[in-house]
């Protein structure tokens, strides 16, 4: 029996793919010139989407860790699905960040002239590592090769942890930006990635009817991880506030009350943290509710990533710098261009397409027998 495809979602994903085509053409023609980025806000939507999808890819790591390291055998049926989700998310993250480069055609320089002191180089290495390991793991699951699947699940754990750590490390070394620097940031990134990744697997497991009991079990894990993440984020904000550096508190004020404050409060705090914290404890017999709570987390993390990346750049490195030489590329404010929105919608559409078509295209990865469609 072939898995059915949700038509409205498929059409929605096709709109996303059309937006992606526009974004890609714009990148080919204008490179980063089609963005609204500048020299004082050099990172925006591309980095936000990259970080978001990188987080989504962490489900593969956590499901492997829970199954192999902590003995949660009930999660075994989700191994293939989690790996597939990680692969789709990594591809989307890769497209988002590659399109953000001013000279994407020179990416081979990561290999030809690497710098071992650069966190970005290590991020690249571990990005590749996670991609390769996920690919091998997916092949093993698709072929039903249990031994290989277990082997690659074990390998996923250290490689994945290093990858999510380096994403935070990438920011934490930027001492000029008080909000980004510091030792809490890498831990915050690991926690954020685990929450996002496992929330994605949970919602996909419900939606594709792979294993509802496992989905409910995962929702408990999501709840615990979300609490850990919320505590770490609180610590991060508190330390920055207490540190009292003028630029850092100005960036914090921008995060909390600036033009993008809705992303932090509305999307991240309310939809992405508070609502799931209320819903998740009530999901014991309700995989649908668990999945919806997880979807809120996923949407909320888009806000969290925006709030992390953009407000930190809203403060001049030296007071008065932003008015010393005037040009739209030398502003401290940032609103994505049409091309950037298209790219964001595009990679989201690509991910949606992958998830909608996944059960049909890769039934071996999505679990053995889809469960009946009656509501639970």
């Amino acid at each position, binding site marked *: 029996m072939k898995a059915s495809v949700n038509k409205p979602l498929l059409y929605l994903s096709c709109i996303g793919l059309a937006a992606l085509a526009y974004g890609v053409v714009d990148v080919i023609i204008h*490179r*980063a010139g089609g963005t609204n980025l500048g020299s004082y806000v050099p*990172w925006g939507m591309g980095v936000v989407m990259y970080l978001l999808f990188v987080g989504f890819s962490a489900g593969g790591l956590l499901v492997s860790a829970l199954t192999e390291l902590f003995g949660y055998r009930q999660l075994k049926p989700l191994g293939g699905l989690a790996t597939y989700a990680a692969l789709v998310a990594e591809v989307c993250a890769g497209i988002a960040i590659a399109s953000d480069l*001013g000279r994407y055609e020179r990416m081979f320089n990561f290999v030809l002239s690497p710098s071992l002191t650069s966190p970005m180089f290590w991020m690249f290495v571990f990005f590749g590592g996670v991609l390769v390991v996920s690919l091998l793991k997916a092949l093993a699951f698709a072929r039903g090769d249990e031994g290989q699947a277990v082997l690659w699940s074990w390998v996923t754990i250290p490689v994945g942890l290093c990858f999510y750590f380096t994403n935070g490390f990438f920011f934490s*070394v930027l001492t000029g930006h008080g909000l980004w620097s510091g030792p809490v940031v890498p831990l915050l990134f690991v926690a954020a990635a685990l929450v996002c990744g496992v929330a994605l697997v949970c919602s996909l497991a419900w939606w594709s009817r792979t294993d509802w009991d496992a989905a409910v079990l995962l929702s408990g894990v999501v709840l615990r991880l979300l609490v850990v993440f919320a505590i770490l984020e609180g610590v991060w904000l508190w330390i920055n506030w207490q540190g009292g550096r003028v630029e850092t508190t100005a960036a914090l004020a921008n995060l909390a009350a600036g033009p993008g404050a809705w992303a932090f409060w509305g999307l991240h705090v309310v939809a992405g943290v508070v609502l799931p914290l209320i819903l998740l404890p009530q999901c014991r017999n309700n995989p649908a509710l668990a999945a919806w709570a997880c979807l809120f987390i996923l949407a909320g993390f888009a806000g969290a990533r925006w709030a992390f990346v953009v407000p930190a750049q809203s403060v001049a490195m030296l007071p008065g710098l932003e008015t*010393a030489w005037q040009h739209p*590329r030398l502003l401290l404010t940032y609103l994505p261009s049409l091309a950037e929105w298209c790219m964001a919608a595009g990679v989201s559409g690509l991910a949606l397409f992958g998830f909608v078509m996944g059960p049909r295209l890769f039934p071996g990865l999505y679990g053995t027998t889809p469960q009946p469609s009656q509501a639970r």
Partner: protein
Amino acid sequence: MSGSLPTEDPLVRMYRELKRASAKDKAQVKWAMVIDQAKCIGCHACAVACASENRLGPGVVYRPVIEQETGTYPNVGRRFLPRPCMQCENPPCVAVCPVTATYKNAQGVTVMDYTRCIGCRYCIAACPYGARCADFGGFYTSRTAESPGQVQGRYAARAYEKQNAPEYGRNWGERGKGSPIGNARKCHFCLHRLAVGQLPSCVTSCVGRATIFGDRNDPASLVSELIGSPRATTLKPELGTRPAVFYLA
């Protein structure tokens, strides 16, 4: 004439010292700059000279002049802070570059290899002085009107704008799609001028002679003399970047 007045234009002395430095082994020279804020009149001549010398495109600036207000009313003051690249001895921008496209040369200048740079802008985020710019392409004349047959017309001006940067002693071709568009860019103490015995453009254009340049390893140089002044400071010393640009506050 009062004996306390300078008898020689500092530019003449700097040129003499430049000749001396050029005769030395390259590895023995350490370029440094001293900016006397008491002499800077905020004319922005250095910023414009730099943009013209290095053919900086729209939104790219190597040496903006920041206006600073000091004190509290009624005891207020105004001063200027020209901000080139600090050519840090311990530069955060170099450490983060994933493809070694930026590095320190033998004379202590932080330089770019445009052919390696992937345009990730990590170095821009890492520089605590905001001293790097991304070149997103484009022309100043993109939105100007065309007046056929006149020098002020867009196409006439575009011909000037299309001349590419003379940086790092290389011909980068006509400005269009190739490097340095898409790259990070920064002040490099006009290495291409130093190579032919000329001082950096900001130094020669400084109306107030507020910008002094020379070999820090030469104890007899004007920069060495001024770096020893009790007025000499650096920006954000707490970060440990050890700038080669000093300010006389």
